[in-house]
């Protein structure tokens, strides 16, 4: 088992605090490359900006399975699209952001991380009707201060700082830096029975673009997308039973049956469940439903790739602050590590 402690949380902190809006993943790519270089036999940055690393197995008897582990480096955020003068900039969202999360938030803009704010009209200057209407995106600006400068095309992200709170972490971009950190840990502790193909992908949030070409490059025998899925385990407004929680914090890694783009390979679902049971690692099944991960693109690649998704649950997806449980992450790493060690060709041949 990989060890789990301060070093892993420090890495996650660094990854969550980095800003890597879809299409501009440089900050995270740099951290990933630094972390993995000593452990990989081969590392390449491809045409889209994916980091693709291979670590060969060491066993000589029998066929070594090529296992692709995928996590996306990008996060949702903003792009500056017009300069209104005096430090005020128009922006568009990149990826699925609910505009209701934006008013009154701090952001960092561009490579220099220039601080800015998304302000709102004072409540005193509104009539009652306006106070209850959603603030439309085109009325919002990023304000860098009167002397502030940004370039049209600069990306911007939430300025949230990572913190540990009791059993939890609070940070932006847990989706999917927690997956990136997981794949880094698994690459560092890769078992010798498999060839591990680590894909740190780009542009997941705007259409699984990086994963598609990564799968085509690796041509793996099977793939596991490691992501972070919403936990909607909040009380219903009327105290009724919450039937659509998706996942719950604290119950362990979430294994997927079906989401908006994939029926996850039933052999791999069973395999992960058996592994968790055998090792007494807590796990949960994600409620079947919408949403999606890189598995959706990977499964459809080449002649078809058996694929599954495993997620660390988090609350408040694509918002300025998400919350996840440290134990869920630790159990995700443990489950995946135990599973990798058990992988043989029979995993995908039996039906």
């Amino acid at each position, binding site marked *: 088992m990989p060890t789990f402690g301060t070093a892993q949380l420090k890495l996650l902190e660094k990854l969550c605090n980095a800003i890597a809006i879809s299409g501009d993943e440089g900050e995270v790519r740099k951290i990933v490359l630094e972390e993995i270089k000593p452990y990989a036999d081969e590392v390449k940055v491809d045409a889209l900006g994916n980091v693709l690393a291979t670590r060969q197995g060491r066993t000589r008897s029998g066929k070594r399975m090529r296992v692709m582990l995928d996590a996306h480096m990008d996060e949702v955020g903003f792009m500056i699209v017009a300069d209104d003068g005096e*430090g*005020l900039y128009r922006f568009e969202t990149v990826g699925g952001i*609910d505009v*209701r*999360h934006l*008013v*009154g*938030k*701090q952001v960092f803009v561009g490579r220099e991380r*220039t*601080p*800015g*704010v998304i*302000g*709102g*009209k*004072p*409540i*005193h*200057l*509104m009539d009652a009707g306006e*106070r*209850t*209407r*959603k*603030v439309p995106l085109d*009325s919002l*600006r990023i*304000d*860098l*201060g*009167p*002397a*502030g*400068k940004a370039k049209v095309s600069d990306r911007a992200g939430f*300025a*949230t700082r990572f913190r540990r*709170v*009791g*059993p*939890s*972490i*609070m940070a932006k971009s847990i989706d999917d830096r927690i997956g990136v950190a997981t794949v880094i840990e698994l690459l560092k502790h890769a078992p010798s029975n498999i060839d591990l193909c680590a894909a740190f992908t780009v542009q997941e949030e705007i259409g699984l673009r990086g994963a598609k070409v990564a799968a085509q490059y690796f041509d793996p025998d099977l793939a596991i997308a490691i992501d972070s899925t*919403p936990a*909607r385990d*909040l*009380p*219903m*407004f*009327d*105290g009724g039973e*919450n039937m*659509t929680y998706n996942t719950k914090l*604290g119950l362990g890694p979430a294994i997927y049956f079906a989401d908006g783009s994939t029926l996850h390979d039933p052999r791999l679902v069973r395999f992960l469940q058996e592994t968790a049971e055998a090792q007494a690692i807590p796990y949960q099944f994600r409620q079947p439903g919408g949403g999606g991960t890189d598995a959706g693109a990977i499964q459809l690649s080449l002649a078809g790739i058996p694929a599954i998704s495993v997620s660390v649950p988090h*609350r*408040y997806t694509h*918002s*300025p*602050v998400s*919350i996840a449980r440290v134990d869920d992450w630790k159990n995700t790493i443990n489950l995946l590590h135990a599973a990798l060690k058990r992988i043989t060709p029979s995993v995908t041949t039996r039906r």
Partner: protein
Amino acid sequence: MTDILPFLKSLISVSGLSGFETPVAKLVEERWRPLVDETSISRVGSLHGLKTGSGVSPRPSVMIAAHMDAIGMMVSKITDGFLRITKVGGIDVRVLPGAQVTVHANSGEELPAVIAMPSAKLLPETVGDGALAIDYLLVDTGLTSREVEKKVRVGDLVSFANEPIELAGDVISGHTLDNRASVAALTVCLEELQNKPHIWDVWAVATVQEETSFLGAYSSTFELRPQIAIAVDGTFAKGPGANGWQTFPFGKGVGLCMGPNMHPFLHKKLKDLAERLEIPWFLDVTPSHSGTDAYPMQTTAEGIPTALVEFPIRYLHTPVESVAVKDIQRAGRLLAEFIASLEIDFVETIKWDD
């Protein structure tokens, strides 16, 4: 002139919601103590700092006041480890989803938390993707429900927790600049008065509960009975979504308010002084109630001639209120110069221009 920014940053990093101003009052008292002759706390929690004038006793006194309370939230219900909240002061509920806050727990702990917007499936269908009423929002501390039950109780306060940031062009941004920026302006004034002789006594007052009932301004004005009073507060800066007649260019000077809430004579004196000192200023008119401590100050006891000095704040009542630091300095300097200009018989010269 001293750099007021570090003090202002500490002012907006300490809590002090309306009715619970003690933490900020302590900080201000500490800063004012070397600048005044005595400090005291009023019966309802406002901070009074007296800087004695050089005139023969009994001297007239001028009260300069800024409210130190902050808008925020209060826990109204605890549900499965999540907190429901209600407003303290005039909050635009639409700034709350995703906001970082501190829960001031009954256990004495300050719990970092975030305001959660539950997904549509957990809300009535009528909400759709519209703005959420505060009743539907939840506060998440990241703790287990058992820990929450142990630490938090209904009535605990919830305050904004985003850290102050500096924006390009000498601008500070954060929550509660309304009206801690004005407390900073009073501090600048007191600093200036260290080297400026003044005949009148000066009562510097940081008032409580302006955002809810003006309790502090009513009670301190009554207790101190100044001959004249000046309130300092923020007004609306021009900016995204705010361009009407009530809004003023950002960072371009101080506002001198005129309307039934102000004494025209005091207003004119301040205006003339600003002109003479070449302090850039603009005229802000309020046809009725100024919505500031100037109202209770004017109408207390037998009535007090009152003026209002302000500076433009962007995004008022959001967690990213922004203000130009030089406007704070300008307001502080204007106040100090005005106080130093007061002759012993100034009150007798106050006239209606009829």
